[in-house]
């Protein structure tokens, strides 16, 4: 497919980035040579170290704050900002200059992603950056670190795979691709993170995975990262005598991850301290969050330990006199993490959503219900019919619906993300899920062992680039949503009510990379020279709709409104204000982004329809 020597996988995470690569010249079939690049980065002023992870933080220092040369990197002395470990540690004491969670902002429908809005609480004199720009800076740093370490194999000549949450909508995908483009990523493909985790598991097994799964298996991937929770279902089917993997469904976007758990614990401990008369300030709360993280890991990995002492050091040089001492108990952990984030609920449970106060738009739209198991129940319930359309699994699907299954029954589970180093959390999810399965008379799901929880996504992405060349098994599935635009219904409007709308399918479910949807029959009038907006919808369950399908009504769970799309027909060769009939045409690029084009009647012209990422969606 290409002559690049390396297939590079990049995990562009909410809290950490990682880079892994496959040397294709030293790999053959399922025997692959895979490595992780230690990323050169600032770890202190003027100090450079190579670390496996690049923390996804950007620090914008004051001009007087650092000496000259303190921000120099091995490959440049021109940087005015810091990325990585130094940015993270420096920013902890000066949060007004720290950009964090840029990835969550990149998919925040309430803000303009190209506008300089971060850090969101920075004073006016700090030159803010856009969520897009900060992603560009992380990606650029990774490219430069690679080029510095591999001067003989320039980054832009290699095959690059960048991972995104499976739940990213088309606009967020396109923004990620745009960031990669701006960072100098020439040959770039997007890959969903849960798929990357499964690829990594396959790669690590060195061919043994075929013994651990069988035809008819439905693998549930539960990926809890630092900032997001991502769910996917991947079916194992047989085609022409070979095992084939088919991604059948992805979950909603859940902005909830390991960092929220650490913060929740820190607040529990801070409340306990406050009750004892010690008020933790902002600096101490951060230190407490850090201490809680390691205490959490101890309690979750050592079932016999009941309390872990916590020490919050004083800020001054008096360490012993000024430190705050407290402890984290197992009861607190169980209540906060297990019951708060992984409650034992039944399969009919659904996440609670409250109406939000208007002010929450200023921050990130964190998931309103922290119960990951409730989100899981909702996901499996919504996807109960996901197998009906899949060749080779129809019988399984028919059996299940004959027995009155109320949710889709996974047969195996793969975990990803650092929080699952804890066997307690793995057991909690497995026992909850197996409880649901037992209630419907289904066999318990198996745990797929041997995953690399921290670096699986980057590793899997590198392996995917290798698989794309025709080596090894590939996960099929295409787009996990069908897409619709709203058109005004011909029904008579009722005064005072919004006119009823219909949804017209423009891109069906399961479009593979590099494919085009057919042209729909319907035409729209575009006014030359004026932007025209369409309301845009996605559905993760309507697998049967084809291009041109017109929906008159739909359930609240069936269609989700996404950001508006906007088409502008330039005036060249036309009179401004003229109305031109166009058709909307969808295609999925090789990189994995959805593109919509307006095709004027009777011409070969194609005008790109943009996703409106300026944050005026009704979401």
């Amino acid at each position, binding site marked *: 497919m290409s002559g690049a020597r390396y297939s590079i996988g990049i995990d562009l995470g909410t809290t950490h980035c990682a880079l892994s690569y496959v040397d294709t010249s030293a790999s053959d079939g399922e025997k692959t040579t895979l490595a992780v690049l230690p990323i050169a980065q600032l*770890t*202190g*002023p*003027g*100090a*450079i*170290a*190579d670390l496996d992870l690049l923390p996804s933080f950007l620090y914008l220092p004051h001009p007087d704050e650092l*000496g*000259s*040369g*303190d921000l*120099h990197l*091995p490959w440049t002395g021109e940087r005015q900002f810091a990325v990585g470990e130094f940015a993270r540690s420096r920013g902890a*004491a000066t949060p007004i200059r720290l950009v964090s969670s840029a990835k969550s902002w990149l998919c925040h429908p309430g803000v303009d992603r190209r506008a300089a809005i971060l850090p969101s609480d920075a004073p006016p004199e700090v030159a803010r950056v856009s969520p897009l720009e900060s992603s560009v800076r992380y990606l650029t740093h990774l490219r430069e670190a690679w080029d510095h370490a591999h001067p003989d194999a320039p980054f832009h000549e290699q095959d690059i795979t960048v991972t995104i949450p499976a739940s990213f909508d088309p606009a967020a995908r396109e923004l990620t691709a745009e960031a990669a483009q701006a960072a100098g990523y020439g040959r770039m493909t997007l890959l969903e993170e849960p798929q990357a985790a499964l690829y990594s598991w396959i790669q690590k097994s060195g061919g043994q995975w075929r013994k651990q799964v069988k035809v008819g298996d439905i693998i549930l991937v539960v990926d809890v990262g630092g900032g997001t929770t991502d769910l996917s279902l991947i079916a194992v089917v047989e085609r022409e005598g070979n095992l084939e993997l088919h991604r059948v469904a992805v979950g909603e976007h859940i902005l909830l991850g390991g960092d929220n758990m650490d913060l929740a614990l820190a607040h529990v401990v801070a409340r306990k301290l406050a009750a004892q008369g010690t008020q933790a300030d902002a600096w101490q709360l951060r230190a407490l969050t850090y201490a809680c993280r*390691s205490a959490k890991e101890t309690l979750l990995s050592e079932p016999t330990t009941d309390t872990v*002492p916590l*020490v919050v*050091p004083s*800020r001054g*040089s*008096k*360490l*012993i*006199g000024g*430190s705050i*001492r407290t402890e984290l108990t197992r009861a607190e952990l169980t209540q906060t993490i297990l019951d708060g984030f992984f409650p034992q609920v039944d399969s009919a449970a659904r996440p609670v959503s409250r109406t939000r106060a208007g002010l929450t738009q200023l921050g990130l739209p964190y998931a309103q219900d922290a119960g990951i198991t409730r989100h899981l129940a909702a996901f499996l319930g919504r996807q109960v019919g996901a197998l009906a359309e899949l060749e080779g699994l129809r019988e399984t699907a028919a059996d299940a619906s004959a027995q009155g299954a109320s949710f889709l029954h996974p047969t195996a589970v793969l975990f990803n993300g650092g929080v699952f180093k804890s066997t307690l959390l793995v057991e909690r999810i497995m026992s909850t899920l197996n409880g649901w399965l037992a209630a419907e008379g289904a066999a318990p799901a198996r745990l797929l062992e041997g995953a690399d929880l921290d670096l699986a996504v980057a590793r899997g992405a590198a392996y995917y680039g290798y698989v794309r060349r025709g080596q090894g098994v590939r996960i099929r599935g295409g787009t996990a949503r069908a897409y619709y635009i709203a058109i005004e219904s011909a029904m008579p409007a009722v005064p005072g009510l919004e006119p009823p709308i219909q949804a017209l399918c423009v891109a069906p479910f399961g479009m593979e990379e590099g494919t085009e949807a057919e042209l729909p029959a319907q035409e729209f009038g575009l006014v030359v020279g004026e932007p025209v907006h369409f309301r845009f919808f996605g559905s993760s369950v309507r697998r049967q709709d084809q291009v041109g399908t017109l929906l008159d009504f739909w359930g609240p769970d069936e269609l989700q409104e996404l950001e508006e799309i906007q088409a502008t027909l330039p005036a060249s060769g036309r009179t401004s204000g003229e109305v031109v009939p166009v058709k909307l045409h969808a295609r999925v690029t090789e990189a994995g982004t959805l593109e919509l084009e307006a095709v004027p009647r009777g011409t070969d012209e194609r005008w790109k329809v943009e996703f409106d990422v300026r944050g005026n969606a009704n979401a």
Partner: protein
Amino acid sequence: MTDSNPSFLGRISLAVSAFFRILGDGEFAAAVLRVRDGGAAAQAQTQAQTQTQAPSQAPKAAPTLKEASPDAALQLLGLLQRDARFIDFVEEDIKRFSDADIGAAARLVHEGCRATLREHFTIRPVRDEAEGSRVTLQEGFDASAIRLTGNVVGRAPFVGSISHRGWRVDDVRLPKLAESHNAKVIAPAEVEL
């Protein structure tokens, strides 16, 4: 990275890593010695070829003591202070505090020191046998890696029991420093605005 003419920064890091490796790795030290004396040795060789009969019995020069570079030591102190509050702990007067108070702070310092050591050094025991087990040391054992104590008489092979397994550093990964970096400031004063 086979740069035939490394940058100044590169040379600093090379010097630092070489320094620690020379300390920890006898073979490496010998190799460095050979490289250092290589020029002279080559010269001596050509001379020896021209005057084949000349005896090469130069008088043994007095050993030169090498100066330890303070930068790496300062850098390590800085890391221990940053990640383990090491200087704060050692500089504090602990007489007036209870053992419980000191113990709480020691936990923090211990955790930080351990993380720092594990991040920047690969440390493993010199001898893998359990302490207390009997070992035999053959002639030519590395006297810099094994110290004989007690009834040290006779000649190799020596038989004794391990009272301490020893520690050796296999790898040092200290951050590289910018030229302008002032290593003497191991913890900057903090002023909150």
